[in-house]
């Protein structure tokens, strides 16, 4: 083949060949040093590609070759070596190439033959030259012979062939015409690569062609540059490889930096994207809570602990004398009483000192602003995420073209586990069957009255259940108030924790009951899921609000108690004063230990404690259910199955499935409680971070260890914003009571950062008056008045904007999809089918191209 290019200047070639022969030893050693996977692969592929070029060009001179006598031995040896290389190459290249293997090997064998011929020709030519100047060549010839005799190592061989390639097309040696030709060829290949997708070829051929032409372009594009261009090109290639490797490593590093990414991916591959979506949501929630925690911890708890007055200095920072004996008991601490109550964890501990420490830290202001800031930040994040999701998520009409959706979009490509894949397969099949049945039934529509009756009945039952649970909670909270009036010490642990227990238990069991009841309704699974979510939502919300209403009652009780206490304290102080005066007339400062001073009930701390207890009991129930309901069940099913009279795994108890909707709702309501209670218990975000952290590990473990993939695997892509919307609603609903208490109820007189003020937000006014110059406060108030109305309008506008944008995108997508699909009549359907298929194939193709 080299002849076709170099017939004109044989001498030049021979000399250059000779020079290279001298250098070979050096280069070989160099190469051995460089022996790396990537290198090897590249070399192998390049060499192969060279062979292919060879094939192209040898076709021209096939006839000439035929004339030459064939030496069998000479031909066989390189062939064997080549085969070796092919094996190596195939081993190195990813498994997706497997299908191509046969074809490629066949092709390569062909090429090998031809190449063998070519080599033979070359050696002949060499002999001629050797005759010309034997003195120079002997050394090299010996080397060559040696190589042919003993089994040359793979690398040497590659090297040799590379040499031959270089010999074939030395850009320097090309005439301008040939260069032009080469350029054209490169351009042609480039065109081919671009237009490859549209070619009606089988996938294999496309892949092979793509790789060939890519390699061709890669090789000769650089070769077109003259002189130093080649070296520069090699350098460029090396750098791009390095750069790519670096990028890949960097990507890996970035993935490793995302917390729990690998865990979630693993779960995703086993259980599909819906279960993974829960964990992603959990992680997102964790992030938000981290920031809330950072705010409260850094700006409220730490300053107070470091710079505020120490424990025991004033009454609000001291355990009262009556509780001192039991203040360190575990039971009391577990209920967040005793020392836990009189610590930075709760509202009551904070002093109303305007500034603390050498930093002159404005504690009450900071407390207030952090409370407002956490809520504001949460609103911002939730709305921003929602808007982003709304932009991202493809909006489509789910109902009109049921079968096409099912046909083209039902596979979840993230599934990597055979069992899940089986389940998914089965679920798709069943969904098809169901859809067909549904279609038939919708045409028949008999027994509609029975269905309606059953649906009404189911809703009635659910309502009964909701009302029952609401009443039970109300009853329990009222009872707990009675207990509180009696004095909590007289009651058992069960009675003291009744409210939290009942709430957690109802929150756990009622959804199960709803699930069972929903079987009556005979809805489509997706619709059934929405109903289920709605009902659980109603249940949780009802429970939460009953709890809050009961808490409000309790706050009022406490405030009445406070009035009495206030009156008593003045009396007590007066008596104390009188007493001391009567005893010693010097009127020295009375020293009474702060633990002995009577104090008010401090309703804020009470609210905070209630929320903390609720969170704790909720967490405990979640974990205990996880351990009993999932782990213990799985253990029993697994190990009792050896000696049980029926199949436990396939039949009755079986393994549990991961309940995505229930878990997500639990998370959302948990967050709602945090938002509600965080103002009165700064420790809540910290507790929540802890809880989420533990849940992440525990649930990941539980899912992988004791759950089975859902029988009804559904995709979660659409439901993300649904969860977000729920979160927003809960955020709104949970800030309402908090704002109500802050705005309408005066703070306790002797505890908390706002004690002594008539309202909590007075702290702002105070700051404005005393910390800023007078003009500033005036300006501030003016500006406030000026923008007050505008703020409201802006809020409304924001909401309207969001709704409008989403609805617009919905509408557009709807119209477009309808247009697209409706124009496709039945006769044209197969065209779409083919188009989609080619699209999918191209996708695969693209991915493969990327991989290689």
């Amino acid at each position, binding site marked *: 083949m080299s002849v076709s290019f170099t017939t004109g200047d044989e001498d030049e070639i021979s000399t250059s060949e000779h020079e290279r022969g001298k250098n070979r030893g050096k280069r070989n050693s160099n190469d051995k040093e460089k022996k790396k996977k990537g290198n090897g692969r590249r070399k192998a592929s390049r060499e192969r590609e060279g062979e292919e070029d060879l094939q192209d060009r040898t076709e021209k001179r096939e006839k000439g070759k035929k004339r030459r006598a064939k030496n069998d031995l000479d031909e066989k040896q390189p062939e064997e070596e080549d085969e070796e290389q092919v094996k190596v190459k195939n081993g190195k290249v990813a498994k997706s190439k497997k299908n191509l293997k046969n074809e490629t090997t066949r092709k390569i064998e062909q090429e090998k033959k031809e190449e063998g011929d070519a080599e033979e020709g070359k050696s002949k030519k060499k002999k001629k030259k050797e005759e010309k100047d034997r003195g120079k060549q002997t050394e090299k010839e010996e080397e060559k012979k040696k190589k042919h005799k003993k089994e040359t190592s793979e690398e040497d061989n590659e090297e040799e062939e590379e040499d031959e390639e270089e010999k074939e097309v030395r850009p320097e040696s090309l005439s301008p015409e040939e260069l032009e030709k080469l350029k054209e060829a490169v351009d042609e290949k480039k065109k081919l690569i671009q237009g490859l997708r549209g070619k009606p070829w089988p996938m294999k051929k496309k892949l092979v062609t793509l790789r060939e032409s890519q390699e061709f372009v890669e090789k000769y594009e650089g070769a077109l540059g003259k002189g130093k261009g080649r070296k520069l090109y090699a350098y460029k290639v090396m750098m791009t490889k390095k750069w790519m490797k670096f990028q890949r490593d960097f990507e890996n590093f970035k993935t490793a930096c995302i917390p729990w990414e690998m865990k979630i991916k693993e779960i995703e591959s086993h259980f599909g994207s819906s279960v993974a979506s829960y964990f992603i949501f959990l992680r997102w929630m964790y992030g938000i809570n981290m920031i809330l925690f950072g705010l409260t911890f850094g700006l409220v708890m730490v300053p107070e602990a470091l710079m505020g007055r120490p424990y025991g200095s004033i009454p609000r920072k001291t355990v009262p004398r009556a509780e001192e004996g039991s203040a360190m008991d575990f039971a009391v601490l577990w209920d967040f009483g005793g020392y836990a109550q009189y610590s930075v964890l709760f509202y009551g501990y904070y002093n109303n000192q305007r500034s603390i420490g050498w930093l002159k830290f404005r504690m009450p202001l900071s407390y207030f602003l952090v409370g407002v800031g956490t809520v504001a930040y949460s609103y911002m994040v939730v709305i921003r995420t929602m808007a982003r999701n709304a932009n991202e998520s493809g909006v489509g009409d789910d109902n009109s073209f049921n079968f096409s959706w099912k046909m083209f979009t039902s596979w979840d490509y993230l599934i990597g586990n055979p069992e899940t894949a089986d389940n998914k397969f089965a679920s798709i099949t069943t969904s098809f069957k169901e859809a067909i049945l549904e279609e038939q039934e919708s045409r028949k529509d008999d027994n509609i009255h029975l269905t309606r009756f059953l649906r009404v009945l189911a809703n009635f039952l659910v309502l009964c*259940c909701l009302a029952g649970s609401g009443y039970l909670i109300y009853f329990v909270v009222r009872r707990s108030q009675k207990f509180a009036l009696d004095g909590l010490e007289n009651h*058992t642990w069960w009675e003291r924790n009744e409210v939290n*227990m*009942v709430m957690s238990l109802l929150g756990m069991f009622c959804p199960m009951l709803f699930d069972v009841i929903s079987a009556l309704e005979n809805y489509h699974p997706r619709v059934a899921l929405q109903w289920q979510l709605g009902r659980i939502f109603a249940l949780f919300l009802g429970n939460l609000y009953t709890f809050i209403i009961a808490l409000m009652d309790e706050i009022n009780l406490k405030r009445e108690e406070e009035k009495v206490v206030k009156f008593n304290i003045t009396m007590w102080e007066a008596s104390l004063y009188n007493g001391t005066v009567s005893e010693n007339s010097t009127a020295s400062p009375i020293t009474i230990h702060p633990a002995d001073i009577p104090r008010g009930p401090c309703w804020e701390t009470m609210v905070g404690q209630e929320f903390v207890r609720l969170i704790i009991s909720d967490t405990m129930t979640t974990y205990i259910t996880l351990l009993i309901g999932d782990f213990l069940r799985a253990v029993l099913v697994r190990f009792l*199955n050896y000696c049980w009279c*029926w199949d436990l*795994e*396939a*039949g009755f108890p079986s393994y549990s499935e991961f309940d995505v909707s229930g878990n997500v709702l639990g998370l959302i309501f948990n967050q709602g409680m945090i938002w509600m209670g965080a103002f009165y218990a700064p420790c809540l975000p910290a507790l929540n971070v802890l809880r989420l952290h533990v849940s992440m590990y525990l649930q990941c473990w539980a899912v992988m260890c004791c759950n089975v993939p859902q029988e009804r695997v559904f995709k979660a892509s659409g439901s993300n914003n649904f969860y977000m919307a729920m979160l927003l609603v809960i955020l709104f609903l949970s800030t309402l009571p908090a704002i109500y208490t802050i705005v309408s109820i005066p703070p306790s007189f002797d505890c908390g950062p706002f004690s002594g003020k008539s309202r909590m937000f007075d702290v702002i006014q105070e700051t404005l008056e005393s910390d800023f110059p007078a003009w500033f406060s005036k300006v501030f108030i003016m500006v406030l008045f000026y923008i007050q109305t505008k703020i409201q309008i802006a809020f409304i506008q924001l909401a309207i904007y969001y709704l409008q944008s989403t609805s617009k995108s919905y509408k557009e997508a709807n119209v477009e999809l309808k247009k697209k699909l409706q124009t496709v009549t039945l006769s044209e359907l197969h065209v779409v089918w083919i188009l989609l298929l080619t699209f999918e194939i191209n996708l695969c193709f693209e991915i493969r191209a990327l991989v290689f």
Partner: protein
Amino acid sequence: LPKCPRMVSPAIALAFLPLLLTVIIRYRFYFVLFYRAILIRIWKDCVTGLTREERAFQYVLTHATPGDPESILEAFDEWCSKVEFISNIGPKKGKILDRLLLEQRPLTVLELGTHCGYSTIRIARALPLGARLYSVEMDQRNAAIAEKIIRLAGFDDDTVELIVNPSDEVIPRLRSDYGLERLDFVFMDHWKKCYRPDLELLEGCGLLGKGSMIVADNVLFPGAPKFLRYIRKCGLYEWKIHRATLEYSRGIRDGMAELVYQGIK
């Protein structure tokens, strides 16, 4: 008011009500089955002093036409669904069995687990002329009743041969004692734990030829997990599971495994 300090408060107990309801509603079929198959059985055993099978036989005797397999099966079905519960193959899965038999047209049939003879009659009436059914029953008393019922249905010794012995003893002797070379059809409905060992025994004795069909009832409930695992793994069979519900009960899922022996390739 005097209080019992250890008592869990009633409100917490009430909170468990939804759980209780859920369990009852979700597993109602299992509770019904438990009631019908176990409680009623124990009660009737005490009252009448007869075994369940004897009671069934009495009912069949009084309600069915002798010599008519159809009416005997009907009487059985009625007794099992209305009066008491016996785990026969039942009418629904029975139809699948009938279809398989009609497709297969087997000449030598082995039935493991005769029990009361319900399935024996079902198989025997679907057999072609000249075919022979060997039915294996372990329990002496059941076998006596089954014998009576089979004869009542009009099948003689040439068509149905009842072997009273445990299946693991019978199978190795089938070749020597009964001169069997190959079984065309095997129906398993005895102890679920014996499915797998008996299948292996059948393979080991070389009684299965290419195309022999094995049908096993109740592979999902009560279930024979080891059997299913075995057929999945060994690769000797082409198999599928006919999904149905448990006999005489609506909500419990059950399946019947159909295996076709392919032999070692």
